[in-house]
């Protein structure tokens, strides 16, 4: 019951700035003439940049805010910066797309900002109700974004499926929260941990397991692990490609952050829950990797293929979470950065190549792209190779760190399964490369030149991919020294 002071607001400054800019975009929307809506995109980007600066600044004001429901620590700070990066790239990559498909309303940019706010609250919250509200903000925004092409069947279906299954998952997550609250009398994760660790007899282990499983199911839907991945392919395929770029990264990163905070940060420390958490993670990691990769082998639609690939990547990240501890956490955080760079890059490039109304998203449509547009083909190839985990790209070190943490945790079996999976994944990532470089015939996809903003976004992600692929230790060192008390 402390009163709210200015320090509290400083610690949520990035979120505040984003919210203000989202409002600004919405207020400017009616006064912006048709055909000039891109301006709103730039306003949104300005907001993202400002929020980014703010998040750098608030790194110097660590501590909790609002009755310990928000924590401004290295962990949240890093993830917020990552989310802002994603949002920025997606905004850059979507402006031309929206204009081309004549859906360039300011609402889109506002929604992206809102979804980012929600995700940012998710990663910064140390209190489950706040997590829940953040989750809902980001989920609801993304439901809308997925169905942003209202008149288009696939976009709409994507939205329906995402919405129904997302809400279903939310109910599970919430039920888990209810039981955690019932067992510990609090929803503050730090207090939950302390209560459970200090007086383990207060909660029946079975009920705790149920709470853990329920929360896991809820989060598993969000990060799309098997068997809760059923929505992912359809949603990713149906949503407008820049939206897919966003929702395959930002909400996922946030959900992973929550997964880490809840499971690694809290329940891992609890003796009676530890094994359940461990096996839950272990099994879903294996299932997710295997199913994601195997299913991806049969896909002919690029967006769908990348959807299954993102399921597989969720599996790899789960390996890191299974490993747990400070090392597993930093590996997962590193992975999230790499994954965001390559996935966003790939999707926004595909969004451009797919042409108006995304007519060309089949692998066959990319045939011969290398001959006609070698630059774009090369970029897409780099994204694919990075996703496949070739060295000198970030995808390699992402996997490497995760697998190393797993080996440190003596999860040799899991590591080997993961490695074999990543070999299998090479096949389908190369399918696209095969089509672009080795297929015969004229390419179907859009041959218009890359708009400047999109080009910039792609350049940023490429740079990031190579920089982190060649010099990963700087970031990893930072991640290792997050100084988060719960690790």
């Amino acid at each position, binding site marked *: 019951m402390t009163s709210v002071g200015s320090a509290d607001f400083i610690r949520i400054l990035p979120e505040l700035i984003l919210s203000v800019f989202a409002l600004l975009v919405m207020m400017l929307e009616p006064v912006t003439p048709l055909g000039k809506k891109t301006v709103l995109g730039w306003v949104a980007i300005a907001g993202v940049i400002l929020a980014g600066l703010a998040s750098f600044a608030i790194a110097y004001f660590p501590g909790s805010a609002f009755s310990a429901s928000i924590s401004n620590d290295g962990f949240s700070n890093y993830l917020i910066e990552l989310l802002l990066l994603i949002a920025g790239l997606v905004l850059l990559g979507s402006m031309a797309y929206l204009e081309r498909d004549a859906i360039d309303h300011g609402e889109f940019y506002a929604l992206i900002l809102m979804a980012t706010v929600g995700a940012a609250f998710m990663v910064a919250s140390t209190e489950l*109700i706040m997590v*829940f*509200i953040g989750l*809902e903000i980001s989920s*609801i925004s993304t*439901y*809308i974004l997925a*169905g942003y092409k*209202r*008149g*288009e*069947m*696939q976009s*709409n*279906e*994507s*939205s*329906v*499926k995402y*919405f*129904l299954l997302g*809400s*279903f998952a*939310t*109910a599970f997550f*919430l*039920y888990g*929260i*209810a*039981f955690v*609250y*019932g067992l510990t*009398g*609090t*929803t503050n994760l730090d207090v939950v941990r302390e209560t459970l660790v200090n007086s383990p007899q207060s909660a029946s282990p079975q009920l705790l397991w149920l709470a853990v499983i329920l929360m896991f199911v809820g989060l598993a839907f969000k990060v799309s692990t098997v068997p809760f991945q059923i929505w992912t*392919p*359809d949603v990713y*395929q*149906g949503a407008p490609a820049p939206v897919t770029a966003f929702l395959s990264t930002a909400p996922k990163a946030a959900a992973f952050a929550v997964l880490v905070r809840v499971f690694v940060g809290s329940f891992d420390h609890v003796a009676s829950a530890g094994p359940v958490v461990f096996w839950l993670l272990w099994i879903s990691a294996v299932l997710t990797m295997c199913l994601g990769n195997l299913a991806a082998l049969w896909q002919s639609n690029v967006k*769908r293929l990348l959807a299954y690939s993102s399921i597989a990547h969720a599996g790899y990240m789960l390996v890191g979470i299974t490993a747990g501890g400070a090392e597993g956490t930093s590996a997962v955080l590193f992975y999230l950065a790499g994954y965001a760079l390559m996935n966003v890059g790939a999707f926004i490039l595909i969004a451009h190549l797919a042409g108006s109304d995304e007519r060309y998203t089949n692998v066959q449509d990319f045939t011969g792209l290398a001959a006609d547009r070698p630059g774009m083909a090369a970029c897409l190839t780099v994204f694919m190779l990075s996703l496949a985990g070739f060295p000198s790209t970030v995808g390699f070190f992402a996997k490497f760190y995760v697998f190393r943490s797993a080996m440190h945790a003596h999860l040799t079996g899991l590591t080997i399964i993961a490695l074999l999976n990543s070999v299998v994944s090479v096949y389908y990532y190369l399918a696209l490369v095969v089509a672009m470089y080795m297929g015969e015939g004229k390419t179907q996809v859009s041959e218009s030149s890359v708009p400047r903003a999109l080009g910039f976004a792609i350049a940023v992600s490429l740079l990031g991919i190579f920089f982190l692929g060649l010099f990963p230790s700087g970031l990893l060192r930072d991640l290792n020294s997050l100084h988060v008390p719960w690790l």
Partner: protein
Amino acid sequence: MIPLSHILLLSVILFTLGAAGFIIRRNVITVFMCIELMLNAVNLAFIAFARRLPGLDGQLFVFFVIVVAAAEAAVGLAIIVALYRNRNSLAIDDVDSMKL
């Protein structure tokens, strides 16, 4: 007084019914209503626990859940209306323009 376990059982039964409905119903709106049913079961659990624990936090959580449910309903129904405009049907089985 009413035993906590009875309230929780009621909550669990409602939750399970909601989840079952989510699985077996074929109408999008009904499915959505089943989700609402699940949320209500959660709320009941919160209230039951709040009764047992010191503080009103549990009741407050229900408040938030209701707010969230309202937001979700607004968006969800808008999505469903858009679905109907596109398909002229509300059957989930018809939502299949992408291969499974």
